[in-house]
């Protein structure tokens, strides 16, 4: 098993003919993901790379191909609309890679998804990968190995760094999920931790957080109350100044809240092993497995 995606994933790519969409679709197909359809309004009827039929709407793609998962690569200006469309077509797992969606758009998108029981991963995220099964998004497949460690992170390249450490030192992954760097996201740490706890093929979880908000603190409470599997944690931004956005829209210390120190203390209180640097991941995991 794995969480959220596996061999049953039938993917529709929204924005398949765009620059990023076409590049990453080829990467996903190359990895073995079942890309069953693409959507670009006005380009319906084409066949992408001889593999995936292109439709004008997500609804058409779903009724023709039984797609059950969507990934979104469209520009920020139309990304919220693309999420609405996927949910309306009955897609229950929507992965939004796009960065730059206004937060106020997300305040309207999220209740819409809740009402339909759809899960959104992202926005502003690298997507997810269940090694050797399926990859949805942009995480490079070549750094991952199949195995029994779950990884959940607010970051992209920092996740690659830590996954690379795991893979090169013999610890494969069940699923790696990038939940995104925005202040409002569809799937948070607790959702992923709870799925990893329930997954019989995951033995331990690596949680990679950063400054801003209180998602990590709430996740720490969840780990203490509801998890039996070992959890290793890292927080980026120990040297970040307050009041400044550090790249990600959500990575900001407001007043004195959302600091790395506060999050690391919450981890430690909850019995989560805290990494001081990315290279600590393997030694800490091996101590606990």
């Amino acid at each position, binding site marked *: 098993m794995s969480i959220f995606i596996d061999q049953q994933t039938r993917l529709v790519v929204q924005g398949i003919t765009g620059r990023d969409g076409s590049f*990453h679709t080829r990467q996903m197909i190359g990895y073995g993901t079942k890309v069953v359809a693409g959507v670009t309004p006005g380009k319906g009827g084409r066949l992408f790379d001889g593999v995936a039929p292109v439709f004008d709407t997500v609804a058409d793609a779903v009724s023709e191909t039984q797609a059950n998962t969507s990934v979104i690569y469209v520009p*920020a*200006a139309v990304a919220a609309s693309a999420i609405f469309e996927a949910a309306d077509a009955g897609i229950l797992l929507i992965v939004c890679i796009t960065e*730059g*969606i*206004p*937060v*106020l758009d*997300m*305040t*309207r998108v999220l*209740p819409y998804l809740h009402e339909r029981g759809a899960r959104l991963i992202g926005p502003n995220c*690298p997507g997810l990968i269940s090694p050797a099964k399926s990859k949805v998004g*942009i*995480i*490079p497949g*070549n*750094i991952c190995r199949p195995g029994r460690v779950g990884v959940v*992170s*607010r*970051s*992209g*390249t*920092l*996740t*690659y*760094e830590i996954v*690379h450490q795991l893979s090169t030192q013999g610890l494969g992954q069940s699923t790696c999920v990038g939940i995104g*760097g925005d*202040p*409002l996201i569809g799937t948070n740490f607790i959702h992923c931790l709870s799925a990893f706890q329930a997954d019989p093929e995951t033995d331990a979880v690596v949680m*990679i957080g*950063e*400054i801003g*908000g*209180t*998602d990590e603190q*709430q996740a720490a409470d969840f780990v203490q109350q509801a998890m039996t599997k070992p959890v290793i944690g*890292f927080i*980026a*931004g*120990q*040297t*970040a*100044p307050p009041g*400044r*956005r*550090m*790249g*990600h*829209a*959500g*990575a900001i210390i407001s*007043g*004195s809240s959302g600091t*790395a120190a506060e999050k690391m203390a919450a981890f430690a209180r909850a019995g989560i092993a805290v990494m*001081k*640097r*990315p*290279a600590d991941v393997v030694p800490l995991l091996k101590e606990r497995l």
Partner: protein
Amino acid sequence: MNLHEYQARDILRRHGIPVPPGEVATTADEARAIAARLGGRVVVKAQVHAGGRGKAGGVKLAANADEAAAHAAKILGMTIKGLTVSRVLVAPAADIASESYVGIIVDRTSQRPVLMVSAAGGIDIEEVAAKTPEKIHRLAVDPRYGLLAHQALGLALKLYGDIAQARAAAEIMQRLYAAFYAVGASLAEINPLVTTREGAVAALDAKIVIDDNELDRRPEIAALRDTSAEAPSEVAAREAGLTFVKLEGTVGCCVNGAGLAMATMDLVKYYGGEPANFLDIGGSSNPQKVVSALRIITADQSVRAILFNIFGGITRGDDVANGIVQATRSLPLKVPLVIRLTGTNEELGVQILKQAGFSALTDMDEAVKQAVAQVKAA
């Protein structure tokens, strides 16, 4: 993006919120003319993106137009928290009977806009939140229906015993909520919301922060940006499509990805150094971006060594290597450069760098250690 007080007041006024008159001056003479037009006592307020303007001497009361001019002459050109004042707001000194606070933010936990009100207005609301949180009343608004009339009135009644004043404040809250969505704000606050001796309710001071992601679709709001109120290095970075935050240390950092950039800064500190900046070159490996990044980092005189930390995923190692080679050709470096390059097309990238006389490491810890050692040797 932060707006100035005078810009925020204009937005509130356009949304039908009562705001006392007031105009912006860039010279003492203009301040005198505005004060003379307004008549009576006025307040002269520095327009900078910094809190604590009053404490810094950037807000002064004037009894007449000449005094207003004298205050303006002192405040204009003054530096508050590193920012030079180039504009002052001249407004009538209000005769205030009461002060309260009304603000809206997007709350990350409830994922909704949250209205916050407090009768303890006119002072730092974060201080109130930290010391006496019970004095702040909060309401998470369902964005599908907006702030409903009875909800606004319920909050207003926490501030005012008088029903007419409560109704006026409730109306202001609904208009503020509408303005929040209309301009794409991430924060909108009226502090203080005042009642005058005559009993009228008005917004005396306003603060609005715009979500940067809104600017592309709101050119009229984007046009309000005042680059003279920002650090020049950060303006240059934004124009080059980079995210840059200046820090106080000596190790210049150039990284792809925000999380990895933060982790790199932290690792510099872990090995006994101090990062000079946060800089994310993003997913693109466009050589021009690398040139801009190096130009911005080297403009900082305190930088003693530059550290590149690139984990190629979508970003290709050979592209970044070419960027570094091109950049250093057009911009000779005076400080040592330590490069960590791994991931996609790593071998090709390392080869390109070696041919140009650079060495490249593949391990992040090793690269950070070397950069810190270079600073200590310098």
